[in-house]
């Protein structure tokens, strides 16, 4: 180590308590930043993943976009999806043909028809408005994860019992029913249909779990008075959910039918979560900046205390550049050691938080039993980079003061 490094280390070691407190300040800042990044990124990932798996990635609707497009580029499609007039239609006829067309589209993994029925479920004196999807259980299991999200009963039972119905967890809870219980549904025309609960699922999304039900597709067609081969739409699963817009555009271009995607459906809620995350991160960055003042404080104190030492060093021929290095090394050492300690603490804390059981309660948008904490190397790169930048910035004032010090002014007191 050169002279500047040796002096810097000796300064820090002789002021051990203050150095440790400063390192602790930076470490706490870094720890909070790593944990917050892990938490906010985990939250948005969790929400997106839950949303993606809770419902079909995209839905090909019965409506057709005005004037079947021949050649489209991406911008045109967005414009059509948002502003284009749609030819109103409440059902697809001969859905098998369209299903084959959609299934052949690159990126589409599975397609399933559904018939949507709105009604009110009643059990005793409890009522709940619902949206029931009439599905082919085996097809639906390939499009959504509902078959794997069953908390009670089996999803496949829908094809075994004609009057079977599968309810969302919160819906079943609100009605006070479980598997085997009888329940009645009143449709839009006021007709009452008897059902028996054959399963309860949990998607993790409150809006779905409290209002979604599944019935067999034939029953749904009967309720609507529709014949075989008709459907409200087609639900599809895609290979890359985060690139669903591209597939949707291609389907619109190929079929002329309007397409709704998970992104479109949840744009507002995801944007709102992202905005909240950004606010949290900004607050954390401010907290971290406060810890930078700790470095400035320590270095200022050292410079003030060491005025005579600095004068002697310059008097014996130590260059202003070398004096600058002494205090920059001190600031950097405090920043880097603090950041490394903070990153390790942050890793530990986010792992601990991720392992603890936790529930936001039934009122939360996303129903979860733990907080998803994500870990990415860039969290640590960002925090380390920020710490180093902060420690350099915090050192600038004291360093300039030390470098500009005129030895004779110290010795002579002017």
């Amino acid at each position: 180590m050169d002279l500047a490094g040796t002096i810097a280390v000796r300064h820090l070691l002789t002021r051990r308590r203050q150095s440790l407190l400063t390192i602790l300040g930076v470490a706490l800042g870094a720890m909070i930043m790593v944990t917050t990044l892990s938490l906010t990124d985990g939250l948005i990932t969790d929400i997106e993943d839950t949303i993606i798996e809770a419902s079909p990635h995209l839905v090909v609707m019965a409506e057709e976009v005005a004037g079947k497009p021949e050649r489209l580029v991406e911008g045109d499609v967005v414009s059509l999806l948002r502003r284009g007039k749609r030819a109103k239609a409440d059902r697809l006829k001969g859905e098998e043909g369209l299903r084959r067309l959609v299934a052949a589209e690159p990126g589409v993994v599975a397609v399933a028809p559904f018939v949507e029925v709105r009604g009110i479920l009643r059990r005793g004196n409890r009522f709940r408005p619902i949206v029931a999807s009439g599905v082919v259980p085996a097809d639906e299991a390939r499009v959504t994860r509902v078959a794997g999200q069953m908390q009670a009963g089996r999803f496949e039972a829908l094809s075994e019992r004609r009057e079977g119905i599968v309810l969302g967890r919160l819906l079943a809870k609100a009605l006070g029913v479980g598997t085997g219980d009888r329940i009645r549904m009143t449709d839009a025309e006021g007709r009452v249909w008897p059902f028996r609960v054959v399963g309860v699922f949990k998607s993790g999304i409150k809006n779905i779990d409290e209002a979604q039900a599944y019935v067999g597709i034939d029953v749904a067609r009967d309720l609507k008075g529709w014949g075989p081969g008709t459907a409200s739409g087609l639900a599809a699963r895609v290979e890359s959910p985060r690139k669903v817009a591209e597939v949707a555009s291609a389907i619109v271009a190929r079929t002329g039918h309007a397409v709704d995607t998970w992104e479109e459906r949840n744009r507002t809620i995801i944007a709102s979560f992202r905005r909240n995350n950004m606010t949290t991160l900004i607050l954390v960055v401010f907290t971290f900046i406060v810890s930078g003042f700790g470095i400035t404080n320590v270095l200022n104190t050292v410079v003030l205390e060491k005025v005579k030492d600095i004068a002697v060093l310059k008097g014996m021929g130590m260059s202003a550049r070398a004096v600058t290095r002494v205090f920059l090394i001190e600031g950097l050492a405090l920043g880097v050691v603090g950041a490394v300690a903070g990153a390790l603490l942050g890793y530990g804390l986010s792992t601990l938080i991720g392992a603890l059981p936790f529930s936001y309660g039934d009122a939360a948008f996303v129903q979860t039993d733990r907080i998803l904490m994500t870990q990415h190397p860039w969290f640590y790169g960002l925090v380390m980079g920020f710490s180093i930048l902060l420690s350099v910035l915090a050192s600038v004032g004291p360093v300039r003061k030390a470098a500009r010090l005129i030895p004779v002014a110290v010795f002579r007191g002017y």
Partner: protein
Amino acid sequence: MSLLEARGVTKELAVAGAPPARILDGVSLSVARGEFVAITGPSGSGKSTLLYLLGGLDHPTAGEILLDGRNLAAMDDEALTLLRNEAIGFVYQFHFLLPEFTALENVMMPILAGGRTTRKEAMARARDLLGEVGLADRLDHLPRQLSGGQQQRVSIARALANKPLLLCADEPTGNLDTANTERIVDLLLTLNRTMNQTVLVVTHEGSVADRAGREIRVVDGKVAS
């Protein structure tokens, strides 16, 4: 030929709301190689200011200062810093040793700051110098573990670390008792005689000035004798 020569050196200091205060007024002097010169004068006469100018720690307002033919007055801060490291050693009234470093490390410091030798060579040189000032058994002591006289001897060893052309001492015994004053003056005289070290000492003590080879008296910013 003189080692050090000052020609018409003037030093003025800015005073807020008043005309500049003239501390030195056209001082001219010369010091030969190997001389031991005492700069004396009453308090506030400008003798320490003169020493700092001659030692390259400050810039004169006017005049020239030639050390071994190089004009200090024309040098910028960076060049002066380099020159101080190579050619000038300073001893102050207070030892000004760095408290976190041992006696040996303090003496090594000017050598390491110059960056012209290895750490091992610097250590050997510092060890020799501390031996010469009688502190061979105090190498690893921190300044606070040494007496006032010992601290000042370490600072003399430090001033000699880079074999300077000129050793400047500003009231080196001003903070010591009589016995230690004697030892320090003896040491400076020995260095002057055995190593032909040129020494400039600012002092207000007659006993120190009496032992110097020559006395330059400064009164009211001018050389009086």
